[in-house]
């Protein structure tokens, strides 16, 4: 079942279309990555999903409820962190959670607060003022407040920003565990590696448009590229092109794109047999290469 669906969502601010005709859907139990560089429009999209701003055109459904038409019914199923999870610093963690629990219509408030605090590992510090929390603790409290209303969809905007590597790993594990329990997670990021490690599917956003969407597993098995340092570089490049490879030559390296492992081995052997010296050979791995291939291919037409 689709927990989140976007239909042709466009947002214009002033004369500018910040995001354009987004169509996405997230199923329950799925971690959906929303990958794009800074300024691509990730936060704008997330603000529309959680009802902070209205789409100029198109519609967003959460568990079948339109966010604009039936905001209360739709938002009953959302837990969210938009950019930084700003909390009330002058309140304790427990008071913050109590505040959000009241608004989420939670029944057994104390019990629920204890549950989510245990879930994110914050039960010991719950009665400290939030202004004395470290960044990592704030992030956990952010997740706790997102979970407080027992949502079906978790919307996270660059949630690992500012966390150290250990914190990031812990966070990823938490997200995976939540998804395993059936939660749908929509998470934005500008880091490919993070999306690769955390998500099941990914949409790539560039300048307000989704330019590619694929499952992470599929991207991973796709062919990568090969970077070579060889003698007589230009000659080698011409030789390879003549044999049908896609080759770029720059900065003292040749880059051959779109080839899997056996093809790479074969190519190196042929180069050696053709009496080029191969000093260095490096494979760039599946996802990044296919990501570059995807984005490069689709935005190549109007690139500067």
């Amino acid at each position, binding site marked *: 079942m689709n927990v989140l669906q976007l239909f042709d969502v466009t947002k214009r601010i002033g004369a500018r279309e910040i995001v354009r005709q987004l169509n996405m859907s997230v199923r329950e139990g799925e971690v959906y990555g929303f990958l794009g560089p800074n300024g691509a429009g990730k936060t704008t999209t997330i603000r529309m999903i*959680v*009802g*902070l701003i209205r789409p100029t055109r198109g519609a967003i459904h959460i568990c079948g409820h339109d966010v604009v038409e039936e*905001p209360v019914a739709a938002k009953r199923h959302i837990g969210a962190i938009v950019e930084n999870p*700003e909390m*009330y610093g002058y309140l304790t963690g427990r008071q913050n959670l109590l505040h*959000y629990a009241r*608004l*989420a219509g939670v029944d057994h408030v104390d019990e629920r607060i204890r549950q989510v605090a245990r879930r994110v590992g914050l039960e010991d510090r719950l009665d400290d003022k939030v202004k004395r929390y470290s960044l990592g603790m704030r992030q956990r409290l952010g997740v706790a407040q997102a979970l407080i209303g027992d949502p079906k969809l978790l919307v996270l905007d660059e949630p690992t920003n500012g966390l150290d590597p250990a914190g990031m790993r812990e966070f990823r594990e938490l997200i995976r565990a939540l998804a395993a329990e059936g939660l749908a997670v929509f998470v934005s990021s500008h880091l490919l590696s993070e999306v690769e490690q955390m998500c099941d599917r990914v949409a790539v956003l560039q300048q307000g448009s989704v330019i590619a969407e694929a499952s992470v597993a599929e991207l991973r098995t796709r062919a990568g590229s090969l970077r070579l340092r060889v003698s007589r570089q230009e000659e080698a490049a011409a030789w390879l092109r003549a044999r049908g490879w896609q080759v770029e030559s720059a900065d003292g390296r040749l880059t051959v794109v779109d080839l899997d492992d056996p093809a790479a081995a074969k190519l190196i052997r042929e180069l050696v047999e053709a009496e080029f010296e191969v000093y260095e050979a490096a494979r760039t791995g599946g996802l990044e290469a296919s990501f570059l291939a995807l984005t490069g291919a689709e935005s190549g037409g109007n690139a500067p």
Partner: protein
Amino acid sequence: MTLWNVVQNEWMKLVRRRRLTIVVALALCLVGMFALGEHHEKQIVARVATQAQSADWRASTQADLQAAQRALNQMSGASSGSVMEAQTRSSLEQRIQEDRYRLAHDVAPLAPNLLNGWSNTSQFVGEATKTFIPLLVVILVGDIVAGEMTQGTIKLLVVRPVRRRTLLVGKWLVSVASSGVLAFLLCFAFLGVALAVDGPQGAMQPEWLNVSVRFFTQPGILQPVPVALYDHALVWPAWQAFLLQSALVAGAMMAMATIAFTCSVLLPSAMVATSAAMGAVIIGFVVSAMARGQSWVKWLFTTHLSLYGDLAGGTAFTIGSPVSLTGGVVVLIAWSVVLLAAAFVRFGRQDILNA
């Protein structure tokens, strides 16, 4: 149900913010200053006037009443409509009302070496409610929405399964209730220190309500001359008048809270919203004094922050044109309703982009 939850939340935030501490500290400063002032005045009075209350005040009051009535009777008949005449007539009427009140309720005049803490408090509150208490209200609630915009906490609030309208109603109710309570408590704090310093006497002393003010224009005099008219005046014991005054101050501060609240919805940051509301109070205060006699001054909300002054005549003297309590209440309510409507329209459809 949801609204009650929102109200509980907003109350929790209001009482735990640092702004409340600032408000309480400033209020205590003012109460302390008032106490010092009373103490100082008490010492002066004790030094200059030592004579005690005359033994047979009833006889002298009776005599004064008769004299005043006789003088008034002589005046009636020939009415020239001059200021002098109106003033004399008016002060005679006031004397008669006072004497009658004293005789009927057995209220002796206060001895000259005693201060009346009740009426001193009433005067002080009348001034404080024009600027100082409104400023406290603005500090308390003037960022109740804008503050969350500035801090970014509005995001996690609006994301909840609650209508924006409900959030705003809850915030407004808490702003208004807390401001009313603040004003009420402050009035009684002033009264408490005044009675502690001056002594409890004076609770039954007469206060005039429903005083109308007429403005006489005269050839040769530029400004119309105000004369307080007592024909429909009510004489109340000071304690009763003070209760009414406190209620009116609380009511006016609720209107003030509504105006500050609207600023906090319409303006983008806590800083800007609070400054704008404070500016409105101060500019309004200055304008009412400077534009004396202009008829539009009575449409400003700042003119009516002292509703008790509308009722007791003080406001009319300040702004140089007649006002009434009903008029003042209508002006405050009109401002509140119009601004509140604007706040709801704005917050309901606003894109929250920058929080």
